[in-house]
């Protein structure tokens, strides 16, 4: 048997007995992300759905001046709360959230056909209040338009005069692309999972072996060092890949558990998605395993290696952040950038757009090349005398 295979098998066997590795690779890494995501989404979705149906409690001052208005608002879900003194002060001190104040002159202005004043008193810096104020504003708006139209008709004018512009929003977002916005964290989660899955093995290959004084005896065996390194990298990549597979499974489950149709989004995390994402992730998993081993090799101890790798982990956040905050257009060359290309491809799939063979190949080949380059570097490092000698 080849040295690489022997090392690989031994590393797998040893790691499968390490509870810490197992928890990290098969539980925390792949499942925590989808779980948090699922819980978070459920809370958000439930609140959104409830909000639309719920009544809107508002403190109303001067209700007696505009009974018709209040009746109309009541039909849209307004729930009148008793008035308070000094509403501005009450809102500032957060005793009440939202106040509708009807001016005493309301009825007079109304009858004269002049703009009748209502005040909305709220604190926009409080998120949940802002949304409710907006809803009340919308209710008032639509009432205002209705009355305007009626007035124009009664004066023999066409109500269309009121609307010289006809704005019609035709959102081209498909149910799938809306889903992609929702699942936007998934590419990063998958890459992060690949980072976490093999991290312990990657550290163990150099810093770990050195720390427990087993590297020197290991390297005295008649096996070329690069084979030992390759075996350890493969073991790390195996764990990392298993993590990614599990994570995909968990996300598919999360997708199925969310009330996506009620939210008007579609998400396809089924077999088609998996069969494209997995091959795209394989070269990345290799690259990550090698990079982690490289970085860990510079560390003097296990602990130091962990610190270094924590920093390395931030790298995949760069393309994620770019994708999230700078909505730039996808171009072909981006598929030649490892880490970025995988996230782009996953994002495309989530939006229900096809990933072309060229894009997939470009991503895989470029990442493999980067992995090969990193491997040569790691190999050179592994061949150095200092590495072998226990500190």
């Amino acid at each position, binding site marked *: *048997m080849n*040295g690489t295979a*022997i*090392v690989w098998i*031994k590393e797998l*066997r*040893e790691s499968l*007995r*390490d509870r810490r590795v197992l928890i990290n690779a098969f539980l925390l890494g792949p499942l925590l992300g989808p779980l948090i995501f699922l819980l978070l989404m459920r809370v958000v979705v439930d609140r959104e759905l409830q909000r639309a149906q719920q009544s809107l409690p508002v403190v109303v001052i001067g209700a007696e001046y505009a009974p018709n208005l209040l009746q109309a608002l009541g039909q849209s879900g307004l729930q009148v709360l008793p008035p308070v003194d000094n509403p501005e002060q009450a809102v500032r001190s957060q005793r009440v959230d939202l106040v509708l104040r009807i001016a005493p002159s309301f009825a007079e202005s109304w009858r004269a056909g002049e703009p009748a004043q209502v005040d909305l008193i709220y604190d926009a810096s409080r998120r949940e209040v802002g949304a409710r104020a907006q809803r009340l504003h919308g209710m008032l708006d639509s009432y205002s338009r209705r009355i305007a139209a009626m007035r124009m008709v009664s004066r023999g004018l066409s109500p269309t005069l009121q609307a010289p512009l006809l704005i019609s929003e035709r959102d081209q977002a498909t149910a799938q692309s809306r889903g992609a916005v929702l699942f936007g964290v998934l590419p990063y989660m998958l890459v992060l999972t690949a980072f976490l899955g093999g991290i312990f093995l990657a550290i163990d290959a150099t810093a770990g*072996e050195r720390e*427990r*004084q*087993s*590297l*020197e*005896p*290991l*390297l*005295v*065996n*008649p*096996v*070329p060092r690069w084979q030992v390194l390759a075996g350890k990298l493969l073991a790390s990549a195996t764990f990392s890949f298993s993590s990614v597979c599990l994570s995909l499974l968990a996300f598919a489950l999360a997708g199925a558990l969310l009330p996506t149709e009620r939210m008007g989004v579609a998400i396809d995390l089924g077999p088609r998605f998996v069969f494209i994402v997995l091959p795209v992730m394989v070269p990345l998993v290799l690259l990550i395993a090698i990079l982690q081993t490289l970085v860990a090799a510079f560390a003097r101890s296990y602990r130091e290696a962990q610190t270094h790798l924590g920093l390395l982990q931030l790298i995949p956040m760069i393309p994620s952040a770019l994708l999230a905050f700078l909505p730039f257009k996808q171009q072909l060359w981006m598929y030649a950038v490892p880490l970025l290309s995988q996230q782009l491809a996953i994002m495309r799939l989530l939006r229900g757009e096809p990933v072309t063979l060229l894009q997939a190949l470009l991503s895989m080949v470029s990442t493999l090349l980067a992995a090969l380059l990193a491997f040569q570097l790691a190999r050179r490092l592994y061949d150095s*005398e200092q590495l*072998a*000698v*226990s500190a």
Partner: protein
Amino acid sequence: MIEVRDLHKSFGSVQAVDGVSFTAADGQITGLLGPNGAGKTTTLRMLYTLMHPDRGQVLVDGVDAAREPLQVRRSLGVLPDARGLYKRLTARENIGYFAALHGLTPTQAEARIDVLVNTLDMQEFAGRRTEGFSQGQRLKTAIARALVHEPRNIVLDEPTNGLDVLATRNLRQFLRQLRGQGHCVLLSTHIMQEVAALCDRVVIIARGRVVAEGTPQQLREQAGAEQLEEAFMRLIGSDAGELV
């Protein structure tokens, strides 16, 4: 047989090994004796191809270590100064891992491990994971691991370090047994009694050089001293380092 010719090695400005030559013959136990920091471990590391000498040559059974490192490693059984085990593997699995790396088939490995477990008296703990092993149990496992491929030449760096009296006695017994089988045994030590009790030939190293060589008897005569320790002190010079 191990031949070391004019080895040199420096780390930065420190000349760790400065022209060491000696020969360790088959059927003999050769002791590399020297104070801490004399260059023993570095010499051995070059010998078992972990480090490359700046100058000089290592021949193991006539094979040049610089040209054929893998072949040299195959004919060497090495117990380095670092002898960590894999704590999640049993003693047998630890030994079996090295057996596989030496190219033994699983059947060969099992048979060989059985022999070693018996010889080294490891029956009691061979099937246990090595986490929590005593120093003696660790050492036995490490030795079995080093000898699993039946090497002709055996190199041990400070083998009795950290062992109690009984374990030390057993180890010496075992090394004599290896000598009896015609192996070439080379060990480094800074302990005088070890050399006196065990070695057929002694190579004394100080400050990276060989300062004397011969049987314990010859060394005593050469230095004109009754005791080996005294001879050692005279030969290396009193400023050569601290003796433990």
